[in-house]
């Protein structure tokens, strides 16, 4: 599903910063992996490259058989929309849209008709047990509920991979465990490839494989 070969990334500046120093990584379909590393290790940069949010300088990145390199902004947006679902630490829901409107948004950018995307979003919310909360705004919900809305939004487009950046970081431990259970269940039952970036060993321990990154290389 994911194939990285000798990926390098340098941030230009007065003092160029060589962040990724030749990453080789393979993740198969249906895997649940976690990426761990200290801050400054390059794990965020790796996540950005995996999520097509950032470009890399050297090497190759294949996502589901497609080479992801030097894409135009529009093209990158299209790939992100169709292939990747994001889950963020701070949920990143749009505050003036209701839960269901937030879940509909990726479908809106795919050009799905209003009625159809509403139906799809409602189905997804139902799976999360949030049917009653569909018309509520994010600030009327708890952290766990918000993260479940965000997960619904990530899943609604049936992406190839889910990228989760510290999905439990902003939640209390009980809710964090619930969210992790949910992600694990999705991986198990729907065979969704899932990559979780975390520095929490308890979270990492629940995944099939832990990728440790240090000083821009995989250990």
């Amino acid at each position: 599903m994911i194939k990285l070969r000798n990926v390098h990334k340098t941030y230009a500046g007065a003092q160029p910063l060589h962040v990724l120093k030749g990453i080789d990584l393979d993740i198969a379909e249906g895997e649940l992996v976690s990426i761990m590393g200290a801050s400054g290790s390059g794990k965020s940069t790796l996540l950005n490259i995996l999520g097509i949010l950032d470009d890399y300088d050297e090497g190759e990145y294949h996502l589901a058989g497609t080479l992801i390199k030097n894409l135009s902004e529009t093209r990158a947006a299209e790939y992100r929309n169709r292939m990747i679902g994001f889950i963020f630490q701070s949920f990143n829901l749009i505050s003036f849209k209701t839960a269901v409107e937030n879940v509909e948004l990726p479908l809106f950018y795919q050009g799905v008709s209003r009625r159809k995307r509403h139906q799809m979003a409602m189905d997804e919310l139902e799976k999360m047990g949030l049917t009653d909360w569909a018309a509520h705004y994010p600030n009327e919900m708890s952290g766990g509920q918000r993260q479940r809305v965000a997960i619904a939004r990530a899943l609604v487009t049936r992406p190839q991979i889910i990228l989760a950046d510290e999905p439990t970081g902003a939640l209390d431990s009980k809710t964090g465990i619930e969210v992790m259970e949910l992600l694990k269940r999705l991986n198990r039952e729907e065979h969704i490839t899932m990559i979780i970036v975390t520095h929490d060993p308890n979270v990492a321990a629940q995944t099939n494989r832990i990728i440790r990154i240090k000083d821009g290389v995989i250990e």
Partner: protein
Amino acid sequence: MELLSEIWQTTQRNKLRTSLTGFAVAWGIFMLIVLLGAGNGLINAQQANSDDYVDNSMMVFGGMTSKAYDGLKEGRDVQLDNNDLKTTQTRFTQNIEKAGGILYEGGATITYGENYVSSSLRGVYPIDAEINKTKLVAGRFINEIDIRDRRKVLIIPENQARELIPHNPRALLGQTVKVGQMAFTVIGIEQEDKSRMSTDVHMPFTTVQAIYNRGDKMRRIVFTFHGLETEQENEDFEKRYRATINRQHRAAPDDEDAIWIWNRFTQAMQMAQGMNIIRTALWIIGLFTLLSGIVGVSNIMLITVRERTREFGIRKAIGASPASILRIIITESIVVTGFFGYIGMLLGIGANLYMDATLGSKPIETGLFTATVFVDPTVSLGTCFGVTLVLIIAGTIAGLMPALKAAKIRPIEALRAE
């Protein structure tokens, strides 16, 4: 539709800010419409006044030579005479249709029974009625037979007739009145023109020339013409005409002061140019007023984009293309500009209608004559379309900069801002 509900959602969040910005735009458009309307009012009033005359006519006066010529010094008076009129009638038939002379005799007293009124006399040819668009309420104007026979007939304005028969001025038609010591028959009563003081009594030109011992002299020659369409053609004609008349008075053919020519056609042309300049100036002033509104919109949109950086980052992360972000901002800008612009436009049209109802219908009384400053001070449908176009362009321009800024937002940076 999707876009509009998005915009509705976002503007709802900042009602005060949106309406303050909108006010600037509404004000700009309001000023533009009011200015254009007022300008149209002035222009229409001016045109209504010049409608009193036939455009294709010229008037010629005698002047004073400014060049020595043919052995004579400069500074001689030139007086037009019957010979000049004859030349005008016969030598320029290609362009000149009808010509006539005018003579004035001031301070005549007209008596009817006990009543009298003081007026001035104006000896004219039949063509005079056509050139000045004289309107009669009764009777007829002077005709060729009056001229040929030097009939003692006159046309009197209604306001002067009222002095002679206070309650029924039109009954003066066909009556005999005394002008000085001579008896004249009233053949016509002229409609009172409120925009001028009318005390002129019209008589056959030949009658005045004979009675008041003017020999063959006259004050003016007037004529109507055709076939002179451009300014150049008019100028060439005037030059030829001037040379011919000057020669009859032994003045240099190119002496521009020997006779004066007043061409209503070129004057109307220049007037039209002047009106266009005024109109353009009003547009420019209006647009500059609007500009401050547009800058305001642009400014607010920039702030909005800054506030919504994170939101745009999220949108981009889940698949919004830069073009779709661009579209949101520009459409929002056009909708805000357009919505408030239309409010301004409607208020402006309302103000114009109010002006029309007050100033437009109430003539100003100066004592001597009445004048209307504004005639129909409104803007045309075409102007409204023009203003709509201006609004759309203005909205696009106002939104462009902020939109480009929003489209350039990088999702990583936007999402990092926590």
